[in-house]
């Protein structure tokens, strides 16, 4: 351990009384509370922290903020492992574990860095060129290698042990950024009584003020924070990023609740995703410094000037002992002075000629050498910067020049100007406009409700920032109807005079010096995109900035080009002879900085992913060992295995009971809708394809309803309870859709009908008693109903009691056996179910689940959710006879569309294995065996058999090379093992329908490479005449 060799003896905002131990790449270091991982690494003299994305070049710490392109690390381990975190935004805590990324075997000796010697192979668009040999196969070979070599940190598959939360908040005014402008705005709005949320990404408010050491600035910050704390309506949220601005003044915020500690405190989440709705928003998001591009500008030790200043002033770290400051504007001069004051030897290289006397005087007073009209042409060094080559420079006529002098240094602090952070505005569709005087993009016409203040509005001085924050807040207060601000004055404190002495001279790149092979000039450090890549892309025709971005991937890394975008625009403008305004900008989209998917998911994972609906008898099913399955949101018993039974065994036993004695199953999940009112009969007559107006009281009818477009929506039985009262059942899957359609029709289409519909699905427990002995069992349980065939015929409905429990009994059947559906108020469901179980034991009563339910209905050819899947018509389902010819019904007009009447449409049939061999699978594609092809040419194109139709895309190719063309002639919808028939059977749809009964077709299942011969049959496998219904 070498110790904190670069730590300054005094100053900074770190807590020197609290040393903090952390590990980086397995070595232990010490920092202080208040450090970031980046500042602590620099304090320990660690400058090499990562390898670059494509070329594996050594990289160091480049910034001190959210814009960091280079110093990405992987944090923690196991389930808390988190890749691609900028070290500049990691607060140091005791025990922090961090790893560098994209290096092997070690950061210092990286095997892949050899890639950097062949940059031509990886030039712009290399994905589309280098590895795309004559065939697609080339990419297949290279892809694996490239994906492994190019990259960021690795993810983990270990489960995250931490919780994530979602929260909502409302405010009059959202202020994004707690720098001087944001603080001033929050204070002014708070004084007016506005409910304010002030959001700051950093761990503490202050913004750029945290990086200053001059008393007026730090005094102002102190008094502002004191006043802020006294304002009751202002909520300050630190460690929180506003990453997205959405419609309706909605903002996405990510609060890093516990990222700055090893493990979240008890009952605290790691992160919290906030959705904030604001009346108005002030963006005080500041500016981000941008670099100037020159040869080998990515060496560790090259850093933004403001970052170097921040490390010295805020973190008490001297990032270099011999510093060269390279700039084209005045802002870097205060960085130079602060680094000099901290003890570094400093020279300033400024591209501008004829610098004003005031600046020269400041530099000579500070003991700083000044090189005007000069530029850094190249950085020299292997794993860290050792010197820079200085060339004479004329911004009006930039041209390669001979190196004038070489300056030794261990830090190059570079400033190419500033870029206001306008991402949130851009997300709302606000196009930035180029301000040539300040060489920056500023906000264009603002969306309603938004204001910009401070650096984000192009304000350069502290006084101007504070003033613009106040002004924006006063305007917001007026718009929100707040009390007139008590005072528009800034908190106490004399502000420094910071007027610029000389204007910025925009410079994007410095030509490589003459006399030596040029190094790489990086524009986007994170994606390794250089100035030459932009030039190449431009030569190849990618002149539009949006195309350039996608072709070179510039600005598409997870820093979203925060330091590189404007330089790229400047370079493209230069290449094309346009202005930056003409070149335009790319579009920013949320999120401003990476957001973990876990935070967006919040607590809605695992069991909480979606709601679960349970039947009133759910506990009984669980107690009796049911295997459960989901149908829509419902958790239903799948089968009730006895010890040692497989699913097929259990299903066979359960169905056998229904066919031979009596079974009991839970149908509570069926949709149940109460339809009441004088016009109920007319309403049902309109929504069902078959007639309902003549249904007598005490009888039920099977009905099918269509969507307005003529496709079948759902089926079910509806019974007439009394003159104006009907009880409708729907399938489990379509219950919600049916209810919404009925409500739409009654409210929007036919408001004159006097009908009310109410979902009563949760109010009724339902159970089906099925089998030849079902009436015997029912007679033991239910009183007050004449169960004789005369008293309660098939499709009859009656009310009675089971003990004290009121019950509704429908004689309907889904299994083809004599059966009854018995409904009771949900709270009595369990008691009724238990009565059936108790009194049916000696009859051989067997409970059955949805597996047996499915087998029974497929044996009978009854359609269910798999057949009513939103594409099938009445005719497809073999139900055309049901449509009434005498009354109009919803969907009737469009059901007559030509395409729906096409006799070639697939129609419902039964299917079974032709040879008893192979596998029947739901979803298999049915193919005409005469369209089969058998082999392929060497290039993979199929040779067709002679009878085959013209080639289309192959639907399927089996392992032996044979396969099918086209889209098939149908598909398999439902499959079961039939215990009754002792073989696999299926329902499906096939073109030609009944005319194909007896023929054989191929069932292709491309996913598993299966081709199975199946025979087409009628869809009724068991008791086609329906005699058992009355048995």
């Amino acid at each position: 351990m070498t110790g904190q060799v670069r730590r300054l003896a005094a100053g900074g905002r770190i807590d020197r009384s609290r040393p903090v131990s952390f590990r980086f790449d397995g070595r232990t270091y010490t920092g202080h509370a208040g450090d970031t991982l980046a500042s602590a690494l620099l304090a320990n003299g660690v400058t090499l922290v990562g390898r670059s994305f494509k070329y594996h070049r050594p990289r160091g710490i480049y910034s001190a903020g959210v814009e960091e392109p280079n110093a990405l690390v992987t944090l923690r381990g196991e389930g808390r492992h988190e890749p691609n975190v900028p070290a500049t935004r990691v607060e140091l805590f005791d025990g922090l574990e961090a790893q560098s990324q994209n290096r092997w075997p070690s950061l210092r000796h990286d095997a892949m860095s050899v890639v950097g010697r062949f940059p031509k192979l990886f030039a712009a668009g290399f994905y589309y060129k280098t590895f795309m040999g004559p065939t697609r196969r080339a990419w297949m070979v290279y892809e694996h290698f490239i994906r492994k070599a190019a990259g960021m940190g690795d993810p983990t598959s270990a489960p995250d042990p931490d919780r994530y939360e979602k929260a909502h908040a409302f405010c009059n005014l959202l202020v994004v950024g707690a720098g001087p402008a944001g603080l001033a705005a929050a204070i002014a709005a708070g004084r007016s009584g506005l409910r304010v949320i002030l959001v700051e990404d950093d761990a503490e408010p202050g913004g750029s003020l945290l990086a200053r050491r001059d008393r007026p600035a730090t005094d102002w910050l102190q008094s502002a924070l004191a006043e802020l704390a006294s304002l009751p309506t202002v909520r300050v949220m630190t460690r929180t990023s506003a990453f997205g601005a959405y419609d309706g003044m909605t903002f996405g915020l990510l609060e890093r609740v516990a990222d700055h500690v090893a493990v979240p405190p008890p009952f605290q989440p790691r992160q919290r995703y906030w959705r904030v709705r604001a009346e108005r928003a002030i963006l005080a998001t500041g500016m981000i410094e941008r670099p100037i591009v020159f040869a080998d500008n990515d060496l560790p030790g090259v850093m933004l000037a403001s970052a170097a200043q921040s490390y010295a002033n805020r973190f008490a770290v001297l990032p270099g002992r011999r510093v060269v400051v390279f700039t084209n504007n005045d802002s870097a001069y205060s960085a130079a002075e602060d680094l000099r004051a901290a003890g570094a030897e400093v020279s300033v290289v400024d591209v501008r000629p004829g610098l004003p006397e005031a600046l020269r005087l400041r530099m000579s007073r500070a003991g700083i050498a000044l090189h005007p009209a000069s530029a850094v042409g190249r950085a020299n060094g292997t794993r860290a910067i050792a010197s820079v080559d200085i060339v004479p420079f004329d911004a009006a006529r930039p041209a390669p020049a001979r190196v004038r002098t070489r300056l030794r240094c261990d830090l190059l602090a570079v400033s190419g100007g500033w870029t206001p952070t306008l991402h949130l505005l851009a997300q709302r569709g606000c196009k930035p406009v180029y301000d040539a005087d300040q060489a920056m993009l500023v906000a264009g016409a603002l969306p309603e409700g938004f204001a910009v203040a401070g650096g984000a509005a192009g304000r350069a001085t502290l006084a101007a920032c504070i003033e613009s924050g106040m002004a924006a807040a006063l305007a917001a207060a007026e718009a929100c109807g707040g009390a007139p601000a008590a005072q528009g004055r800034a908190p106490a404190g004399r502000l420094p005079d910071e007027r610029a002495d000389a204007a910025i001279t925009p410079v994007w790149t410095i030509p490589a010096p003459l006399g030596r092979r040029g190094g790489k000039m990086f524009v986007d450090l994170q994606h390794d995109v250089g100035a030459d890549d932009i030039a190449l892309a431009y030569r190849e025709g990618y002149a539009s900035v949006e195309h350039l971005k996608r072709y070179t991937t510039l600005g598409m890394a997870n820093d979203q080009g925060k330091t590189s975008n404007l330089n790229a625009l400047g370079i493209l403008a230069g290449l094309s002879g346009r202005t930056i305004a003409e070149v335009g900008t790319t579009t920013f989209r949320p999120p401003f900085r990476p957001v973990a998917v876990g935070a967006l998911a919040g607590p809605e994972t695992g069991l909480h992913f979606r709601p679960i609906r349970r039947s009133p008898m759910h506990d009984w099913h669980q107690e009796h060992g049911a295997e459960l399955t989901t149908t829509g949101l419902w958790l239903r018993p799948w089968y009730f295995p006895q010890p040692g039974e497989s699913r097929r065994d259990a299903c066979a036993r359960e169905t056998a009971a229904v066919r031979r004695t009596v079974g009991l199953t839970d149908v509570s999940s069926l949709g149940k809708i109460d339809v009441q009112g004088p016009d109920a009969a007319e309403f049902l007559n309109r929504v069902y394809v078959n007639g309902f107006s003549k249904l007598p009281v005490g009888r039920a009818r099977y009905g099918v309803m269509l969507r307005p477009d003529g496709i079948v929506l759902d089926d079910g039985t509806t019974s007439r309870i009394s003159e104006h009262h009907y009880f409708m059942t729907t399938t489990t899957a379509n219950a919600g859709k049916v209810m919404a359609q009925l409500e739409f029709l009654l409210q929007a289409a036919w408001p004159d009908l006097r009908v009310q519909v109410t979902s009563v699905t949760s109010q009724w427990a339902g159970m089906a008693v099925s089998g030849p002995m079902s009436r015997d069992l029912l007679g033991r349980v239910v009183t007050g109903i004449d169960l004789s065939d005369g008293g309660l015929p098939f499709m009859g409905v009656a009310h009675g009691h089971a003990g004290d429990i009121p019950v509704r009994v429908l004689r309907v059947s889904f299994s083809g056996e004599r059966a009854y559906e018995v409904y009771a108020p949900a709270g009595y469901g369990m008691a009724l179910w238990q009565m059936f179980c108790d009194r049916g034991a000696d009859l051989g009563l067997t409970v059955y689940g949805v597996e047996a339910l499915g087998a029974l209905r497929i044996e009978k050819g009854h359609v269910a959710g798999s057949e009513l899947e939103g594409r099938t018509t009445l005719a497809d389902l073999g139900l055309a006879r049901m449509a009434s010819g005498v009354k109009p019904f919803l969907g009737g007009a469009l059901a007559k569309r030509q395409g729906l009447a096409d006799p070639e449409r697939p129609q419902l049939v039964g299917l079974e294995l032709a040879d008893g061999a192979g596998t029947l699978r739901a979803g298999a594609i049915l193919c005409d065996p005469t369209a089969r092809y058998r082999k392929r040419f060497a290039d993979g194109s199929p040779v067709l058999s002679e009878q085959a139709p013209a080639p289309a895309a192959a639907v399927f190719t089996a392992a032996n090379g044979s396969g099918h063309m086209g889209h098939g002639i149908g598909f398999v919808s439902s499959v079961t093992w039939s215990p009754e028939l002792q073989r696999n059977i299926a329902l499906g749809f096939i073109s030609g329908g009944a005319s194909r009964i007896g023929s054989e077709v191929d069932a292709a299942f491309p996913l598993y490479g299966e081709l199975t011969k199946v025979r087409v049959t009628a869809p009724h496998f068991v008791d086609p005449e329906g005699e058992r219904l009355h048995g």
Partner: protein
Amino acid sequence: MLRLACPYCGERDYVEFLYGGDASGPMPELADDDIDRWTDFVFFRDNPKGEHAEFWQHLHGCRQWLRVVRDTVTHRVASVRPARDEVPAEDEKRVEVA
């Protein structure tokens, strides 16, 4: 991220609502078996840039179907009315102009 002022329940977040599509034309009479008119109603939905009348159901609230006039560019909601009400003349005009 819309908020709709349900006339029965008050202002609510869009997550409580179900989108029901274009509300600019009335459903044809049931007895009308003209396929073109039904095709117009079911398939040819207006998709204007600007104000658009559309159905929303307050699914997780009063379950009422509503007729909402919304600007498809700005998401500004001009009106929210029960779908069972007569379409006000000014709404008709606004949507036609758009």
